[in-house]
């Protein structure tokens, strides 16, 4: 990795942007919260990519972009007759780094407000002199000393009264340093109509263990999309607890066996031999494959998929990664990306590598699914599967799978991640990639088809993060097992995970 060349590349790219096409004049004043000046998407994406692979620290990248932002703003003139007129528009909002990276979806240099707002956002960046330690320089430590227990459950807890008819599908039990909880999918309806209701009053449930201890249940969504949640137990059960009896008012107790072992073959860990740049490009490809699913008509008819907003600047990103020496010029991944873009009909990517034919099996599986004339899109019915699988640590991240559920035509994997990555705030890059979760996750069903997993919910708390991954495409039947392939920058884990399907939630 060559950090000096990475920064030089970004600065020279900014120079090229600055002497590019003539800067347009500023239009008449617009609302004050309009972004001031948008630099090219390529520049911001190159900055993001170099930061994502650790070739550039965020402060340096931010400083380069801020300087370019001000340089562009300083070269705009007001259009007559507004020239020289100070706008009454108020100060523009202060956009942060995350906003800069995620919000600038336009292409080319577009003008924004005039007057005070003209420079209000451009350089609101204080310089601190020193550089912050590079993110990811040393692997984050996993939580130490806390109990860790993961148990598959696969049981249903019912609740009925005159206003609500509800079910909790218990997928798993997890007890970590941050506490004990049941991971559940719930469903609640009005008994007199088909209308949906909010979650049932779990605080009215009683929970006892084999030692006679009593617990309170607290419903916490923890960033999980409905209808999944964590049912936290208060206080924490002792480490050796054997079972829990959960009783909803007016219902029989449901005994939850906490000594049930997860039947899972030992996961395989292997080196992947990918450079940081290749890993990032693979994740970008997965993002393209995920988003393409939103355009089934175009995919089935082999017409271009409108994902130019996502693909623009990819060629510059590749050049930036090569400049930083995190992507070999001989790497096959840019060529694969070119083939993928061609297969999906994605244009405007700027990838100049010759298309490669050796696409990964995972990509081919999704492409064949998309291009099938009569795609098998009928999803499995709603349901949940008990899962408890702690995967080996990958690049400082330990992924624990704690349930899978089908709902409303989608399939979600409920998971927990451990490690200091989990403490970082959610930060989506310009391509929608999570900067604080640099794993690529694929799932193969028992029919041999691959499904790409993408994070849709994230909640950090004390070295842990609850994570919900949506599978694309969704599972089409109740597969008795899945193979999970998690790939980090340095290694990959393959684990075959049995699914114990529970009742309809």
């Amino acid at each position, binding site marked *: 990795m060559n950090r000096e060349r990475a920064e030089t590349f970004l600065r020279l790219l900014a*120079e090229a942007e600055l*002497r590019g096409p003539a800067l347009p004049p500023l239009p008449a004043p617009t609302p004050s919260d309009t972004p001031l000046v948008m630099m090219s998407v390529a520049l911001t994406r190159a900055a993001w990519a170099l930061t994502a692979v650790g070739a550039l620290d965020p402060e340096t990248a931010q400083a380069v972009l801020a300087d370019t932002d*001000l340089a562009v703003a300083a*070269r705009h003139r007001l259009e007559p007759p507004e020239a020289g007129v100070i*706008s009454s528009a*108020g*100060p523009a909002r202060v956009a942060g780094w995350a906003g800069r990276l995620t919000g600038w979806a336009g292409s080319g240099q577009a003008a924004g407000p005039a007057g005070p707002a003209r420079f*209000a956002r*451009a350089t*609101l960046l204080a310089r601190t002199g020193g550089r912050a330690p590079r993110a990811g320089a040393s692997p984050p430590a996993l939580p130490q000393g806390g109990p860790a227990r993961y148990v598959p459950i696969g049981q249903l807890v019912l609740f009925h009264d005159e206003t609500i008819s509800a079910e909790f599908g218990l997928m798993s039990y997890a007890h970590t340093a941050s506490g004990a909880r049941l991971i559940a999918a719930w469903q609640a309806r009005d008994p007199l109509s088909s209308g949906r209701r909010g979650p049932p009053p779990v605080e009215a449930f009683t929970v006892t263990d084999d030692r006679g201890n009593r617990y309170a249940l607290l419903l916490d969504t923890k960033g999980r999309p409905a209808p999944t949640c964590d049912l936290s137990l208060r206080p924490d059960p002792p480490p050796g607890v054997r079972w829990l009896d959960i009783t909803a008012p007016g219902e029989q107790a449901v005994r939850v066996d906490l000594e049930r072992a997860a039947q899972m073959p030992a996961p395989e860990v292997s080196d992947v031999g990918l450079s940081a740049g290749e890993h990032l490009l693979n994740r970008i490809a997965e993002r393209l494959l995920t988003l393409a699913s939103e355009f089934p008509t175009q995919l089935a008819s082999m017409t271009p998929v409108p994902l130019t907003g996502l693909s623009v600047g990819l060629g510059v990103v590749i050049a930036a990664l090569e400049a930083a020496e995190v992507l070999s010029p001989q790497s096959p991944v840019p060529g694969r990306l070119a083939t993928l873009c061609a297969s999906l009909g994605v244009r405007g990517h700027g990838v100049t590598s010759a298309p490669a034919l050796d696409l990964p099996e995972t990509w081919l599986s999704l492409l064949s699914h998309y291009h099938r004339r009569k795609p098998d899109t009928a999803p499995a019915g709603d349901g949940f599967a008990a899962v408890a699988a702690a995967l080996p640590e990958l690049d400082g991240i330990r992924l624990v799978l704690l349930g899978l559920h089908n709902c409303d035509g989608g399939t979600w994997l409920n998971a927990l991640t451990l490690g200091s990555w989990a403490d970082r705030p959610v930060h989506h890059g310009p391509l929608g990639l999570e900067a604080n979760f640099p794993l690529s996750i694929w799932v193969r069903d028992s029919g041999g088809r691959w499904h790409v997993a993408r994070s849709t919910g994230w909640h950090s708390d004390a070295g842990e993060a609850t994570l919900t991954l949506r599978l694309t495409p969704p599972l089409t039947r109740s597969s008795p097992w899945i193979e999970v392939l998690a790939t980090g920058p340095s290694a990959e884990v393959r684990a075959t995970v049995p699914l114990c399907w529970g009742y309809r939630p």
Partner: protein
Amino acid sequence: MIDGTNEPWFTSLPGCETDVPCGPGRHTVGWEAGSLRLPSHPDAEGELVLAALGGAKARCIELAEAWARHADDLSMLAIGPRGPADEIAVGWDDVIAAAQADQAPGGPAQPRRMRLASQPGPTMARVAARQRQMQEEVLAAQRRRNDILSLLALGYGFQVRLIGQVAAAHAARAGGERVRPALVAAIAGRLAPVAEGWLGIDPDQVEVSLHQARSWGSTELTGYGAARRLRASLPAGWLASVWACGLARVGRYLVVAVDQPGWPDARVLGLRAPGAEPEPLDVHADPDGPADVPHWEI
């Protein structure tokens, strides 16, 4: 900064001056021999003391402070002009408007007071400390932006002189990995348009590296068509003693170093073509011409 001579980098630059809105009127601000001059404020230090005691600070004084704060700020290389044709459209109206926007109600730096329902505990103390820190950061960023806008509003002559000062400061320090990328980009951004006029080459085909030996550097032209490249290795001091002094291109020559600096006569080393040996050239500027953009002839 010395450029093969014992003379400072600005020896080939004449003084320049401009008018600045200051208080109720306009004052002259000048630059002479590497320093900013405030003829309307003969006791600038005394005014600073008064300002520290709560008095209003004159804009001229603020400008001098801003100049000092940014005399080695690499951002000035990234933001400032790449050549006479690269017009910076920042005027005093912009400076005043940006400052007013900061002070407007609801402006970025306005403190947001929270009404507390109970006595603040440790958590509230942390929140308050974080708020203070964020506010200080916003204020620092606003001051920095307003500094830069003010310096740009001084006009092209001052802009290139500040760029020369920044480049000279870093050339003297022989900075490492942390400053080289900014210096390479600064030279590339200013050499490219000069090379376009010199050779007719596309500015995107100019590749620059930082020359760190005592010699002037090197140039090389390679390839044809889209693969054509002008590769130049120049020291950071070129920005100061050559480019900032308006000497980058004289006649049909690319000037790569100054042998005997001076105003309005100087001796420089010029290249007739890439890869050629530099030739000593006696150059002459019109002392009655515009001081902002000195025009030199052989």
